[in-house]
């Protein structure tokens, strides 16, 4: 019995240490990406190509989701606000929810599932088919050529996608609130403008989306680069990317929100 207890503890200790070891490796990998980022900007076409695959191809899901989230906010918001006779505050509710929280967070989650997993799969497959090895043997640094452009593409695309999500959401809220339900159009926009502060809300939202972009892109490229070069290895890595990214996004959101929206 003591045997089982000790082996369970050893197993637990093993997993914790291996996670920490992996985190250390991931951090060195991050530094390596930053170090070798020169190529991504000197040969900007590499990065542009990746922005197409991560950003442009995510547009549909982001825009449609943004629209629906905004519309739901409009419906739910109106339902609650009109009970207190404050239905003209619908604009404020929709705008602030989106710009401060839902825009950056939901678009980051969607980005992680769509673009993040694609990046992991791509890099993992390149590793499994020895393409990264071949590149190394041809004296081309695979981190500079393959990994860094994908990382920067993610960082650049993320804030743009978050802004698009929020904008579509506000439009969705407008559609439902003003066009469908009949909330006063003037007060919808004017109250929104009066309460949404550029620095406090919008800039903070952008900062959040940049931070999320860095985190998701880092996790995606790392999981791909570190995956086992087998079919199960790659599929496990893509799952890990989505799960880890989602958890990290939500945790980081809490930390950032606590810093940014303390009190006032």
């Amino acid at each position, binding site marked *: 019995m003591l045997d089982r207890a000790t082996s369970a503890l050893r197993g637990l200790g093993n997993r914790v240490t291996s996670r920490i070891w992996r985190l250390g490796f991931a951090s060195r990998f991050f530094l390596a990406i930053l170090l070798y980022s020169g190529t991504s900007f000197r040969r900007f*076409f590499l990065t*542009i*190509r990746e*922005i*197409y695959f991560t*950003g*442009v191809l995510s*547009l549909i899901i982001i825009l449609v989701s943004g629209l629906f989230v905004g519309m739901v906010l409009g419906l739910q918001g109106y339902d609650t606000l009109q009970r207190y006779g404050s239905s003209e505050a619908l604009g404020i509710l929709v*705008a602030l929810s989106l*710009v401060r929280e839902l825009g950056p967070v939901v678009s980051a989650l969607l980005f992680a599932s769509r673009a993040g997993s694609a990046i992991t799969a791509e890099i993992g497959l390149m590793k499994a088919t020895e393409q990264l090895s071949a590149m190394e043997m041809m004296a081309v640094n695979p981190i500079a050529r393959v990994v860094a452009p994908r990382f920067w593409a993610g960082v*650049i*695309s993320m*804030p*743009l*996608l978050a*802004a*698009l999500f*929020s*904008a*579509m959401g*506000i439009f969705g809220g407008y559609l439902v609130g003003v066009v469908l339900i009949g909330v006063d159009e003037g007060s919808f*926009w004017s109250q*929104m*403008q*009066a309460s*949404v*502060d*550029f620095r406090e*809300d*919008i800039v903070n939202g*952008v900062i959040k989306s940049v931070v999320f972009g860095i985190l998701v892109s880092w996790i995606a490229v790392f999981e791909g680069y570190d995956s086992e070069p087998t079919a199960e290895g790659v599929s496990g890595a893509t799952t890990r990317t989505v799960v880890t990214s989602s958890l990290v996004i939500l945790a980081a959101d809490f930390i950032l929100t606590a810093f940014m929206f303390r009190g*006032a």
Partner: protein
Amino acid sequence: MNRMTLDIWVGVFVAIGLCALLFLALKVGNLASTNTGETYVLKANFDNIGGLKVRAPVKSAGVVVGRVGDIRLDAERFEAVVTMNISSQFKFPRDTFAKIRTSGLLGEQYIGLAVGGDEQVFKPGESVKKTESAMVLEDLVGQFLFDKAAEGKDKK
């Protein structure tokens, strides 16, 4: 996917992304209305600022003319010293009243400037002498109850 089409699509993507950001900043937020123009400083001392916060608006006749810059406590006289950044296009006469008001019944607090008739105007950095502190709800209720009790006693 050849280079040209790729570049075009990415360009479109970045363009609409930036447009969305611009839309949020101008139409949704208050970037357009916060005049980043020139401002000058006016100070005002209050006994009680209530719930006034930094960056609360300073209004005259209901129109925003500036923002509260800084709020400090004067340790000698135990008054609140409020620094206001007023837009340079507005000059206020020296007998202006600065009152702390609430928008709506339970809304955010702001500073209202009620002008007098003095010909001379404030110079930057000067203090508004006539101030009226915020109405604190508890004091009001206490006052009301006290008045009511006094009334009752008088009647007797």
